[in-house]
């Protein structure tokens, strides 16, 4: 029982990270119908930026955290304004190729700027642990879960209560109608990219003490993609639940099935869901009528 609880703690922590990346996927997809395959790379960049603030500029963890999120949000805003806006209306295929290409550029760029040595990420709670009923909970895991909950609450409140958030929802539901109502759709799209970039940075900074910072961090994006599909690609709660489910399934399958099943669990689940419930668990994506 202790063992299962321990696995759940691990699963919850990694799952929250998948959730945050999946959230980035979904926000952009809902608003602009683009799938951003560079989401994992934005996470990696966020972690690199934060580690630079801490190690090179000597800033405190919290200041570095906030600045890195701002930097990544601005970067993603610019990315949309300068690059991605130009492919709106082009076939999905070109968007997919473009974001995959951007991912390659980000990874190579990160190697050129920060080199290839993995950086240790100093966080105020990186070595602490608490024992609750025999289950060891590292403070990093707690920080990930708390960070995810806080961030999601802020985003929920933003979309529910702020004028800008409501405008974003409007733009994602019907661009034309929103535009006629005076919503600056273009700028709204860039802002959504900014939020996704910021969320990716938060995810990167939260998980960095566990994984170290190097360019393999971007691999997390692929599993999070499975999470987003699992939850139903257009659904925000779906992305969150999907991420946590993938995290847990990975851990539990690794412990109770044959060695190596941990690596395929996420993708196997994805295939199963696509077979049995193609719209995902919280499917909100309507089928196109031909």
């Amino acid at each position: 029982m202790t063992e299962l609880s321990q696995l759940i703690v691990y699963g919850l922590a990694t799952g929250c990270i998948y959730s945050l990346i999946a959230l980035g996927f979904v926000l952009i997809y809902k608003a602009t119908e683009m799938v951003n395959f560079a989401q994992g790379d934005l996470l990696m960049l966020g972690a690199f930026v934060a580690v630079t603030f801490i190690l090179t500029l000597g800033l405190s963890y919290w200041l570095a955290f906030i600045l890195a999120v701002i930097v990544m949000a601005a970067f993603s805003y610019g990315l949309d304004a300068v690059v991605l806006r130009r492919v709106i209306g082009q076939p999905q295929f070109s968007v997919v190729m473009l974001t995959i290409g951007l991912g390659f550029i980000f990874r190579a760029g990160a190697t050129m700027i920060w080199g290839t040595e993995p950086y240790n990420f100093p966080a105020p709670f990186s070595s602490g642990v608490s024992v609750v009923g025999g289950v060891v909970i590292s403070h990093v895991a707690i920080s990930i879960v708390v960070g995810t909950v806080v961030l999601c609450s802020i985003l929920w409140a933003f979309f529910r209560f702020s004028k800008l958030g409501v405008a974003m929802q409007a733009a994602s539901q019907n661009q034309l109608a929103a535009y006629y109502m005076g919503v600056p759709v273009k700028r709204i799209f860039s802002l959504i990219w900014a939020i996704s970039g910021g969320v990716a940075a938060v995810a990167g900074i939260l998980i960095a003490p566990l994984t170290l910072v190097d360019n393999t961090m971007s691999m997390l994006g692929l599993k999070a993609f499975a999470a987003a599909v699992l939850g139903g690609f257009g659904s925000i709660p779906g992305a969150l639940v999907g991420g946590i489910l993938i995290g847990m399934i990975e851990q539990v399958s690794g412990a109770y099935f044959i060695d190596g099943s941990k690596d395929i669990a996420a993708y196997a689940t994805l295939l199963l869901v696509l077979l049995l419930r193609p719209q995902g668990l919280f499917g909100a994506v309507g089928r196109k009528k031909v």
Partner: protein
Amino acid sequence: MKARNLLTSTLAALALALSSSGASQAQTRGVTDTEVIIGSAGDLSGPAANNGLASAHAMQLRVDEINAAGGIHGRKLRLIVEDAQYQVPRAVQAANKLINRDKIFAMIGTVGTPQNNAVFPLLEQNNIPSLFPLSQARVMWSPVNKLKFQFNADYRDQVGGAVKYMVDQKKTKFCAEYQDTDFGKDIVTGAEEELKKAGLSIVAKSTHKPTDTDLGTQMINLRKAGCEVVVLGTLGRDAIIAYTTARRAGWTDVEFIGVSPTYDPAVSGVPDGGTDGLYASTGVWIKPREEMPEAGRQMFDKYKAAYGSEPTVSAMISYIGIDLIAIALEKAGKDVTTESFLAALESIKDYNDAFGNPPQNYSADNHQGSNAAFVTRVKGGAYELIAGPISHTD
């Protein structure tokens, strides 16, 4: 029409005659009057780039030193490094380019076990030596092949030395956490060979992928098996993740031993002493700068001035590799051929490198310079020497 045919065949015959006469006068490949060309399929931007870059830098450093001193028999060394990004297809691509376009004389410092295994057949077809690769897998020098040379303890020697040390410490329950690759398996094989001598075996094994960022389940499974020692078949990053995961989960009555890739400043430098207590076995022990011979101290300073960090094991290995090549070229004389160069390498005895490692000896039936390993342990952000040099074959 006929006339034209005749002309074409005459031209073809002429071309053939010219090319064959050219071949009969050809020199040794990669050796011209002014230079000797050496190639390397490194990793400058992939997951092993911390090793690959350090190696490329150090090789160039030694090449520059040799050239500044006038070269060898009037020839300068020219080093061409290709980026294989730790991917087998790219390594093959790089090797093809080096062999066919650059016409290299010898290959040095190719990064990665599967990459070297894929590249070697190409080298063999063209009779090009495969020297001092950045892989300490046994197949890099054994079984003896006239073209393959490695100078330091391979992974099996390293893990053998560390296991021998742990067996001496009365440990009996050994486990393994390793990358599911040729590299990881080689290390596990080495541990099993050494354990067999003591009548022991590995009681539990678990694997992961090189890019995995979480080893929570693996550590839980090994803990269940009651391991006293976990042999790590890992590179640096996954070693850190495995070790810190286990310790943070409160698993303290266990020792972890890694091989040379875990003997790296990125591993010992984890904040808050996160890797304190981790064992790393290595064939090249980096002495404190003050204890190095003069040549080593000079290299240390030059490297640090040029690249901003202290030379790592990979840097030292490749620096020594170029040095050995230069010695063999010197011995082989002005009219060097691949065969005379290989014979010269085999004749090197009691070679002491710049960094004060155990002496190296080669012969016709031994292409490994030394198999001595050092067992080190992280303490306060640095490695401390626990035992060694240990030769597990003694």
